[in-house]
Each structure stands twice: as structure tokens, then as C-alpha cells.
């Protein structure tokens, strides 16, 4: 058995956590290796020193309990202060509900689809196109309102185009 494993097992053996089979192998190693036996003594001493560390608490349990009891009651009082009374709670609840309602209305208002023809055009003064001037030579213009859509259509026509259109029409 190598030394590292023996030491690892020794630690477990001191804690009563080593299996009987390994315990027997460790015992053999301890018998053979005095340094391992010495290590066991040192680790046992460390355990005793740890236990020697435990000192009496600064208070008696009764005095400590009184302090804890006081702290528990204080924390309960603070918790009561933090939790509002019925009317205080109702007031806060109402305020919260109103805030939520206002927020919801705001979100609904902002997110609803905007009908620009209804929302913007009625506000603007309707433009009446009576005539169109063009720099194109010999061009004539025609303005009319499309019956289906209500959109004002402006035609600018040249003589030859007019003839073509005339043919087409």
C-alpha cells in the first residue's frame, strides 16, 4: 500500500468510516510503518485539540434564550409594522389597482391600430384640385375624382398620347 493511500485510509479509520476489510489492511501497514503509527498519534492529538477549543459560551442558556426571545418579538413587531393595517392595505390595494388600470388603458390606446384616413385626413382641410399646370409642351391636364376610392386623379397628357388613348378608349 502506498503512503498516500494509507494516510487517506487512516483519516477515515479515525472517524470510524473505514470498511473492515480496509481496516485490516491498514492495521498491517501501521504495524510495518512506524511513521504511519506516529501520524495516527498526531491526528488523534489534533482531534483532542479541536475538542479543547470548545469553550463555555459567554452566556448561560437561560440568558441567551431571553435575548433570543426578545429578538424574536422584535422581529415580529417589525414584521407587523411592515404589514399594513386593513384600511391601509385597502388604500394601497386601490391605488395599485388604479395604477394598473391606467397603465392598461395607456397600453391599449397606444397599441390599437391607427386608421390614418379617419384619424388624420378629417382633421386636415380638404384640398380641392381644380387645375394642374405642366411645363411639358402641348400637354393638357385632366383632374377627376375616382368614384370608387374617392382619390383625386391627375392626368397629364401629350397630344400624341391623347390620340393613342383615344384609340385605346
Amino acid at each position, binding site marked *: 500500500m502506498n503512503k498516500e493511500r494509507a494516510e487517506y485510509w487512516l483519516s477515515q479509520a479515525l472517524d470510524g468510516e473505514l470498511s473492515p476489510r480496509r481496516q485490516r489492511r491498514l492495521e498491517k501497514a501501521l504495524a510495518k510503518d512506524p511513521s504511519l503509527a506516529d501520524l495516527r498519534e498526531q491526528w488523534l492529538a489534533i482531534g483532542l485539540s*479541536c475538542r479543547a477549543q470548545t469553550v463555555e459560551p459567554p452566556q448561560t442558556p437561560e440568558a441567551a434564550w431571553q435575548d433570543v426571545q426578545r429578538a424574536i418579538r422584535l422581529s415580529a413587531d417589525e414584521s407587523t409594522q411592515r404589514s399594513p393595517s386593513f384600511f391601509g392595505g385597502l388604500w394601497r390595494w386601490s391605488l395599485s389597482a388604479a395604477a394598473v388600470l391606467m397603465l392598461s388603458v395607456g397600453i391599449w390606446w397606444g397599441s390599437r391600430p391607427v386608421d390614418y384616413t379617419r384619424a388624420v385626413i378629417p382633421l386636415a382641410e380638404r384640398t380641392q384640385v381644380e387645375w394642374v399646370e405642366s411645363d411639358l409642351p402641348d400637354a393638357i391636364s385632366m383632374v377627376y375624382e375616382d368614384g370608387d376610392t374617392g382619390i383625386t386623379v391627375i392626368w397629364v397628357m401629350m397630344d400624341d398620347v391623347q390620340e393613342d388613348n383615344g384609340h385605346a378608349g
Partner: protein
Amino acid sequence: MSPNASNPLNADGEAVDVPRLVQLAKEGNEAAFGELMQAYYARVYGLLKGIVRHEDDARDLSQQVWVKVWHKLDSFKGDSDFYTWLYRVATFAGLDFVRKRKRQREVELSEAMEPNRDADAILPPSLTSRPDSAAQTAEIQTVFERALETLSPEHRTALMLREVEGLSYDEIAQVTGCRRGTVMSRIFYARKSIQEQLKDVR
């Protein structure tokens, strides 16, 4: 029945019926909780002092832990022994405190804790039987305390839970929330580390 974490004694030296007191305390019985608290007070204080290494801090923290235990008692379902749950609350509070504190490890030992007057009586003969044993023992004790200081809080906690509280590896794993193998190696490392530091004074 010898007193240990699972069988604490009350002030009159009588065994405390922990499950009954826990049940009563969960129902809001403050007196039952008081009895429970007093039965475990010294152990929780000792554990916290082992972790935080400072008497006043351990005292304050101990009080906070018991207040927390009172408020959190409903979350104890009884799947494990009460003391493992209690030590878990205390251990986490202690480790959390140490992490937050981030105090220098080289705290003046005289400030950190009272020197142990009974060291001679408690240290094993191998450490006290030399002719100059009084000075030697004091030195060993000082080096030992320093060695404990140099351990990480996690290693120190594992060692204290094992050596002082006598918890098994499985119980320490439950308390500290880590695996059994981790507990095993932490204790092994802690012993090795302390032993290395004590080597020079022997």
C-alpha cells in the same frame, strides 16, 4: 444514553424529547422552542465559534441563527434529524458571515479567543510530557489555533463537525450540502495541513 447532538440534555441533566419540542415549537409554542434552544445553545455557539473564530461574532450570529430557526421551523419536514437541519442553518450562516466579513486571517489571537487554560489537561500526553511542557504546550496551542485559522472555513467546519460534534461523514455532507467524498477529503486535508504546521514545534 450519553449526551450528543441527537440526545441533548436540559439544564437539569435530563434527556430532551427533541421531536416533541420541535412539533410544539412548530405549532407556535415559544416555551417549547426555548427549551429546545437551551438544549442546543452551547453546541450551536461552539460550532459558530469554530467557523467564525471570534467570540462576539459567534454570540451575535448565534442569536441570529436562533431567530432564523424560529421563523424557518415550518420548513423542517422531519426527513432528517433536527440537529442536522439545525447545524445546517448554523453552518450556512457561519460560512456566509465569514465570506462577507473577509477579515484578515492574521487576527490577533488574543482578541479572537481566550487562551485555553485547560490545554494541559486536555492535550494528549504526547504533547505535554516533555520537561518544558508548559511553554511547549502553549506554543503548540498557539500554532494549532493559527493552523486552524489558515484552513478555509469549509475545511475547518468539516473538521469541527467531525471532531467536536462527532457527526458522521453522511451527516456532515447533509449539514454542509456537499458530497460524502468531499467531506472525506476536506477532513483529510485539514488534518494534514494542521499536522504540517505543528511539525516544527514538536
